[in-house]
């Protein structure tokens, strides 16, 4: 598999009125072309901010760590994303090599421009297509993501579409420029299961067709299990576990990953009570010292987990976990 993306030591802080908060803390991962990586975590875990960093879409008060390195490997050679500053530099990646599907489709479409015009506009910015060709492709893409009567929808405004339809239109728009890397931030969360299944299929087709890499951000481990090749679990700005999807879902190592799976209502056994993870994710202003999960962890070791940041330990091939329970070399 060809390398597509290398992220090393991504650290991101925001200056706010209440002080400097750490949103992403020393996150590293790689993604191959044609690979689907699931990024899982609760709201506030920093998964969206991590994804937005890849396109430098974070607001002006964002401060990237000095050691942050983000390299995107394109056909024309590697692109150092941290070195891109002006909006014309960033045009190469934003909507070009990297497309993003956002969580809130209503907020992502301009309300006073038709869906069609927005799709055509971005195609004309990033490709040399004629308006007519761009229109044809847009309508084709709309039909492909399961929008009936695509040519009518093409002429409509975002408010005229249902929530699910809007999300599908956005997926169509993001995929129409055939990006190398697609960042999908909770793309199917607003969709019905039958449509979600179709969209997941569509995304898989496009991966195999264009060899595009996908970072699939979701809180739904079921969606991850059905789409991703690898999975990274994030909590309060840090990666706590990463590895191949089978490994991580079947034999989760980190107490947080275990907790997430236990909280998930599953259909095979309706008698299993739902077990929430106690407490809430702490505010980024009050990041706990040591392991970030220690305030909610049932097996935290007093004096260790509250003080020392756990490093990544290999528990199986390519399967890593950042937890003190595993750090003494005992392989469980």
């Amino acid at each position, binding site marked *: 598999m060809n390398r597509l993306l290398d992220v090393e030591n991504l650290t991101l802080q925001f200056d706010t009125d209440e002080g400097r908060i750490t949103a992403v803390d020393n996150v590293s991962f790689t993604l191959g072309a044609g690979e689907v990586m699931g990024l899982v975590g*609760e*709201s*506030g875990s920093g998964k969206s901010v991590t994804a937005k960093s890849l396109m430098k879409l974070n607001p002006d008060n964002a401060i990237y760590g000095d050691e942050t390195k983000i390299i995107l490997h394109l056909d024309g050679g590697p692109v150092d994303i941290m070195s891109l500053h002006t909006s014309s530099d960033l045009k190469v990646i934003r909507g070009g090599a990297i497309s993003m599907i956002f969580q809130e489709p209503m907020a992502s479409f301009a309300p006073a421009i038709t869906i069609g015009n927005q799709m055509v506009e971005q195609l004309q910015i990033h490709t040399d297509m004629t308006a007519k060709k761009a229109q044809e492709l847009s309508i084709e893409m709309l039909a492909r993501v*399961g*929008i*009936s009567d695509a040519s009518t929808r093409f002429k409509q405004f975002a408010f005229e579409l*249902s*929530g*699910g339809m809007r999300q599908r239109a956005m997926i169509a728009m993001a995929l129409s420029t055939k990006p190398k890397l697609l960042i999908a931030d909770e793309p199917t969360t607003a969709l*019905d*299961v*039958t*449509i*979600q*299944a*179709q969209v*997941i*299929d569509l995304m898989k087709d496009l991966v195999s067709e264009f060899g595009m890499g996908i970072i699939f951000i979701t*809180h*739904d*481990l*079921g*969606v991850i*299990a*059905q789409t991703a090749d690898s999975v990274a679990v994030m909590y309060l700005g840090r990666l706590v576990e990463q590895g191949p*999807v*089978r490994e991580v*879902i*079947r034999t989760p190592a980190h107490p947080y990953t275990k*907790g*997430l*799976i236990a*909280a*998930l*209502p*599953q*259909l095979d056994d*309706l008698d299993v*009570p*739902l*077990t*929430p*993870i106690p407490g*809430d*994710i702490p505010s980024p202003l009050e990041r706990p010292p040591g392991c970030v999960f220690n305030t909610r962890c049932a097996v935290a070791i007093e004096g260790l987990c509250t003080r020392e940041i756990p490093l990544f330990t290999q528990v199986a091939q390519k399967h890593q976990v950042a937890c003190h329970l595993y750090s003494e070399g005992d392989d469980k």
Partner: protein
Amino acid sequence: MSEKPLISVRDLSVHFGLRGGGFGKKPVVRAVDSVDLDIEAGSFFGLVGESGSGKTTLGRALLRAVPITRGAVTYDDGEVRYDLTTIQKAELKDYRTRAQLIFQDPYAALSPRMTVRDIIAEPLEVMGLTRTREETDVRVRKIAEKCRLNLEHLRRFPHAFSGGQRQRISIARALVSKPRFIVADESVAALDVSIQADVLNLLKSIQQEMGLTFLFISHDLSVVAHICDHVAVMYLGRLVETAPTRQLFAAPKHPYTKALLSAIPSLDPDDRGKTQKLEGEIPSPTNPPPGCKFQTRCPVAIDICRKQEPKLDHAGNNHNIACHRWQELLETDTK
């Protein structure tokens, strides 16, 4: 059903007229069409369906929050009996204290300018259920405690709370008037799984403790499977299948229910490609197909399905199915 239903729905239709349409008839959205439904007192009744299936409209019709086009909805809690289609203003005011709604979005449902105490107290004040501020405070504190909110929380504003906490505030607000019937419309859809489990457990324990009847509207079948005792599946304004939860999930009979269950992403990575795919999407309710509403997407539709609308068949054990072929399919399934 063994007990008397708290809510009884007969041939209920809710149609919305649309503007425009030029010459001829104005388009009509048949959001809910000829629905029959009984919700037993004390049950946790699940209503599932895709967006556009009319589940929210049905929920609102039961709260008399949308005009009812045809049919009857009766509410009977033993103390009072209201026919919601003919209900008068004074009775409706009383009904509002007995039936409440919990919204989906805990971020949009709470006013950012009011303290949590005021948010929870508002229904009491608007409905005139308490006479003094002290009385209101007592009621607010009591319900807040049930929803695991402390005194400190009551003084704060909603922005200071996480999604799960905000949803607990919404729940407290809905419960403060001591309702009997709660419509929870996608009430955990906006929450993280780790928190969602917590809110679901809370809803369930409150329901048992206070003897409430819930209509739990959701698109998430796994959640419904875990929390509801009875489920109705809706498609394009119609009920296609209703059954006790375990029965429905163990042996779904309507092709739509089967497809829905199969579309839930499994946690087993080796189940990939095993889902039964439904083509297309739900048709527009302004222009529903003739015959069975599901025939345009149904993998087993035949001629009769395209011509004649199936009636809700009683299959015994409280299991009802609206499909021309369900019995026939039962035989092929067991083969």
